[in-house]
């Protein structure tokens, strides 16, 4: 059997969140990924973020494509529905699911192969449509599941495990998400839970297309010298623009950072993001500025992390389509079907 369930045993003393759920309620099956894979740390951060937000686990729909990264939804939120779709097509499946029921939380998990190559189009279009989702790319610069081929996010000049140099230019998904109008854009590192957990939490609270590119080293195929997605490389080149906390309905908000270095961003649903600035000039409300900032740092070989852009007043696809508040999947014949009288009229108009 390749399926490994976690033992159900709960330590009675486990801490509970506001809804009375423990950490264990946000866990899933035991991971079958390589020990030390960056993706497992992202899984842990997702669990942490959902726990902290006191989300009802079953109100989350977790959707992925195909790849090691796309397997991870099986490893968190065991009580929510998961969907491991086909390679690169998570965004369309998520879009459809979201259209059917706007009341759930949609978590899209993908890989850089999944999103930057075969699924590049779907990635782009789900972002430009403003689907209300948290889209996480677990970016390791290689195809993990098919054993180490370069992916489209591999930096030009970086080396594969076998020593081959990548001669193609890299696609920067963050830059593209910004260009396409994502209303929440962040980059983080799987090894930096302190930064990643609040980013995921804020993205979940954000209404609209949230995109987080998480550099997630593949220890099997891309953690060597010459790789720009290895643990060491990312640690050395990481340049964070801010640190953040997400505050949900806890009034009054006590912010213990020095005034002038903290910025509060209130989101649509009332939650607030406290941004502690590391780069004093960085303004996460300036899309154009974010793009320039990113490019300047990329040219210097630096990896900018943190919340790069947020539009707290974003609209989502349902607003664009002006759909009813009631989830479409609950509507029945009595409200959907115009009935025989309308049909008679319609017939009459065709004679």
């Amino acid at each position, binding site marked *: *059997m*390749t*399926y490994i369930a976690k033992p159900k045993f709960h330590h009675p003393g486990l801490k509970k969140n506001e809804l009375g759920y423990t950490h264990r309620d946000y866990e899933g099956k035991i991971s079958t990924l390589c020990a030390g894979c960056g993706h497992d740390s992202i899984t842990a951060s997702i669990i942490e973020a959902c726990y902290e937000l006191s989300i*009802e*686990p*079953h*109100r989350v*729909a977790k*959707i992925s494509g195909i790849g090691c990264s796309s397997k991870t*939804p*099986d490893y968190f939120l065991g*009580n*929510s*529905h*998961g*969907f*491991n*779709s*086909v390679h690169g*097509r998570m*965004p*369309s*499946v*998520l*879009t*459809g*699911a979201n*259209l*059917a*029921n706007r009341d*759930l939380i949609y978590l899209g998990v993908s890989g850089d192969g999944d999103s930057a190559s075969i699924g590049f*189009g*779907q990635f*782009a*279009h789900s972002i430009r*449509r403003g689907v209300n989702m948290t889209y996480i790319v677990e970016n390791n610069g290689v195809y993990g599941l098919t054993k180490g081929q370069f992916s489209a996010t591999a930096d030009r000049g970086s080396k594969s495990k076998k020593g081959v140099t990548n001669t193609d230019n890299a696609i920067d998904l963050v830059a593209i998400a910004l260009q396409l109008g994502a209303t929440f854009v962040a980059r983080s590192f799987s090894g930096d839970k302190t930064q990643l957990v609040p980013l995921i939490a804020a993205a979940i609270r954000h209404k609209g297309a949230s995109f987080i590119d998480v550099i997630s080293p593949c220890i099997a195929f891309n953690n060597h010298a010459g790789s720009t997605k290895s643990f060491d490389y990312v640690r050395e080149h990481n340049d964070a623009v801010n640190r953040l906390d997400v505050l949900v309905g806890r009034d009054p908000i006590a912010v213990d950072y020095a005034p002038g270095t903290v910025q509060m961003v209130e989101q649509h649903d009332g939650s607030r993001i406290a941004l502690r600035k590391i780069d004093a000039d960085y303004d996460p409300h300036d899309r154009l500025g974010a793009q320039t900032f990113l490019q300047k740092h990329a040219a210097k070989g630096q990896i900018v992390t943190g919340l790069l852009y947020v539009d707290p007043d974003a609209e989502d*696809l*349902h607003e664009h*389509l*002006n*759909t*009813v*508040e009631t989830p*479409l*999947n*609950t*509507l*029945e*014949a009595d*409200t*959907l*079907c*115009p*009935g*025989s009288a309308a*049909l008679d009229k*319609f*017939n009459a108009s*065709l*004679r």
Partner: protein
Amino acid sequence: MSDKKPISSVNDFVVRFANVNGSGSASANEMFARAILRHGVPVSPRNIFPSNIQGLPTWYEVRVTEDGHLGARGGVDMMVAMNPQTWDKDVAGIEPGGYLFYDSTKPMPSTKFRDDITVIGVPLTAITNSTYTDPRQRQLFKNIIYLGALSALLDMDPKLIEQLIGEQYKGKEKLLSSNVHALHLGRDWALQNLKCPTGLRVKKSDKVGDRIFIEGNSAAALGAVYGGATVCAWYPITPSSSVAEAFTAHCKKYRHDPETGKAKYAIVQGEDELASIGIVIGASWNGARAFTATSGPGISLMTEFIGLSYFAEIPAVIMNIQRAGPSTGMPTRTQQCDIIACAYASHGDTKHVLLFPEDPAEAFEFAAAAFDLAERLQTTIFLMLDLDIGMNHRLCRPLKWDDAKQYDRGKVMTAEMLDEGRDFGRYLDVDGDGIPYRTYPGTHPTKGSYFTRGTSRDRYARYSEEGSVYADNMQRLMRKFETAQDLVPRPLQANAERPTKYGVIYFGSTTPAMDEAIGLLEARGHQLDRLRIRAFPFHSSVASFLAEHDFVYVVEQNRDSQLRQLIVNENGIDPVRLVPIVHYDGSPITARFIAKAIGDHQDHIKVTPLRKAVS
């Protein structure tokens, strides 16, 4: 001088308009067809258009048919030749004794005509130019002027055309009166200068009854509204785009919350067919009724997802408006050529449910039913239309709906059922029909969640590549497909007047031509029992029909006799007894073609009509 007697016929002839794409003739031509309908005479019009927006030739053919034969007939009794580019071909296509109507403003050498037809010249350009100065007006009104002239030549009641113009330009008085004026300009010129009427005449009748005149795509789209579809994702492609466009229009009319003005539907124009079917699958997985409309190339792109729908058991509805393939083929020509591609779409062992409506009325019914079937069977349902039904107006019985009808949402386990302690295994065959229960995401805090994947898993949806587990699942999927046999529309059988050893199987848009061909074959002494297939998987009556007949013709509009292949494959029968009758040049099959092909074969096998044997 004619050396053939001019055709003389009342309410039974074919007029074909040859135009240039983009000349604005479509609405005048359609008005011509509608005007005949208003005389109480059935018509069957067909658009024959290129895969181009402007400049290329286009034809519009109106079969006037008091007997109500709605298939294409073949041959042209009157050609309205408005396109110099196709003149030679158009003139050559006229039946001996037929009529040629043309713009006689510029003289034509006599070699451009034929001796065995009646040539009717109307100086259309001269009349328009002397009346209108604006070039666009000249272009548009020329069409109405020829419509006026034709009304005189065919003895039509101008009041009925005026009535149609009135309806079309309701509230736009200026346009209304100028169109009526143009109509009379043509009509009066013809009455004063030509012998009116010709041998072809339209006489008032009462053969239309309460039938409606509608395109298959519009009817199918309305079926989706009635069937409760709330999510539509699509990507433009001829001839299916008008399904999504019609769905949008129907939803605007019927699906807005009267209080808030909000939409009880979501329509997304996907970035491609992959995204469109992905959206459908995501929405259906989450419990909404969703569909996409596409054509052959779109089906090719969707196949990976169709396999997922089959294996992961997610409902989906795909309306496939078929056109001539392979590849881009002839995008604006009709065929029934995606049977195999859809029946076995995707890799691995897959089988899918196909529905074959014969006309817009059935397209409406089957479209609505497709959503019940998709949810009941938790799989993809293909509604197989084609360009001929989809993009042409067809006379059909009025659309009907039973207000007592509730949607069949299939086997969905609710939170209450889970709380009662019902055993939930996503792929458990609880009832022995191969159909498992599903839960919608978000149903219950602790029970009923599962992981959907295209990878093999056990009955409790747990990932497993164990051979026996995989085989068990595949067998259950076969069981489910067998269950489908009794849920899909059954074939309809019509027997010949006398017992016969010969049968014919056909489906979809071939139906009206087939109905007419039967009469022609009877006249030639051939009796055939008929079976109209309406769905795949085939009902057991298909096998019985095959067993009861020595030879069965399978009539279809593709080169490789795909339905025949499917029948042979699925019934394991001797292919020799199934005779393919195929038509695949992109034009709709005609009664004449079928009658000739079957008749010749019957003659060839030296059939002694059974009538003689028993009398």
